[in-house]
């Protein structure tokens, strides 16, 4: 998909993605020449088509995780289907506060390992030693993890 500003004959650049939570998607593209914005709005089925490709409009905010599409697409997976990652999965000094751990426990087990990895990498990259609920909220906002 490419977006062309017809007035300027310039490629419009991706600016922002919003997921209102009702299955729809909004992606904003801007013309770097005239500054005009346009929004791509998709209905739930169109959003699902994009999701089914295992891609995110505008590019990924975090690298695609192994089995991400399977984990997020299966409607009723066996919760204990996957053996939890070993200790070598969480290198570095990052620790989880009690409250953050409780919040992580609320994540379905089928996707918990993946979610834990994403937050752990976020903290390590920023030199954060303790993951708290506040760090999790910030990561969700920074990384665009509206669905996690």
């Amino acid at each position, binding site marked *: *998909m*490419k*977006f*062309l500003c*017809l007035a300027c*004959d310039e*490629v*419009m*650049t*991706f600016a922002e993605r919003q997921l209102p939570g009702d*299955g729809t998607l909004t*992606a904003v*593209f801007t013309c770097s020449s005239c500054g005009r914005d346009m929004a791509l709005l998709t209905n*739930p*089925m169109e959003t*699902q*088509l*994009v*999701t*089914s*490709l*295992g*891609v*995110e*409009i*505008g*590019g*990924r905010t975090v690298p*695609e995780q*192994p*089995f*991400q*599409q*399977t984990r*997020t*697409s*299966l*409607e*009723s*997976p*066996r919760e*204990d*289907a*996957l*053996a*939890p*990652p*070993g200790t070598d*999965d969480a290198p570095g000094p990052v620790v989880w506060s009690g409250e953050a751990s409780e919040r992580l426990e609320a994540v379905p087990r*089928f996707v918990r*390992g*993946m979610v834990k*990895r994403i937050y752990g990498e976020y903290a390590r990259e920023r030199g954060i030693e303790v993951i708290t609920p506040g760090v999790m909220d910030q990561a969700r906002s920074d990384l665009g993890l509206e669905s996690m």
Partner: protein
Amino acid sequence: METRPDLEARVAKPSASSRKIRGYAEVTHETESGVLEQVVAQRGRLERRLASVGAVIAIASGKGGVGKSAITANLAVALADRGARVGAVDADLNGPSLGRMLGLLGARPLDGPDGLVPPTGSRGVVGISTELLLEQDAALRWRGPDGDRFVWQGVTEAGVLREFLGDVVWGELDYLLVDIPPGTDKIGRFLDLVPDPAQVILVTIPSRVAVSVVARSASLLEDAGVDEVGLVVNMAGYTPAGADEPVPLFHGDGAGAVSESIGLELWARIPFDPELGARTDEGDPPGARAAAAGEALRGLAERVERGPGGRERAR
């Protein structure tokens, strides 16, 4: 009536349909949506993962109920018994059975940072199947808006199959067997992901209906340029206890005639073997050790080993 000035003004100002707009190929800029780049990255990840696999071998048919999964399980074990490192993918996402047949039921893949580490089943064969991820007897359903699921479900399943192939930590394998579900379209879906499998085994039974479907699959593979395609005729006769000669189970042609009619080399003619069926259902496929079908399975494993990507070909 349109006046001359009106006409000139209209002609001078191009309509939306006639003005020149640069087309997709003319806009030589990366796609700002990032969709194409992500799809390319997914392909790259799949290729890197399969680079450590000696040969990807698809077991397909086009027809259901011909014993593809049982043959996959028993071929996997027969190859493993010959010392090969074997993995297996159950590409039948909706009707999985390979996990059970390989003795993987109840085992859990390890949720590792580089992918799922597959559990080990019969004779060291590692494998992945939706059977390992779903509650027992639960139907496979995908998250998504209700209605018109057909629009996106196929795309989702292709993505999940890509992860089954590319997001599993296979390690160094000699063979990765892929059990393709019924439907010639499913063979096409697999070829979209793995365009150049080292070998494809088409399984049929001697029934004329099955043979006609398998012939279509053979045609599809030929059109796709897959060079190494072999035919396995399953349930090719049954020798009752105390009898000397096998009796046919179907009113079709013999395996040789079937092979000739489809135009494929006959790699194995596997007789009906109740013991093999029972043990495979229990997750203990006998492979080449099967009483009635063992010799045929041994021959099939040897043919695979001699084929492209096979260990004997590499020596």
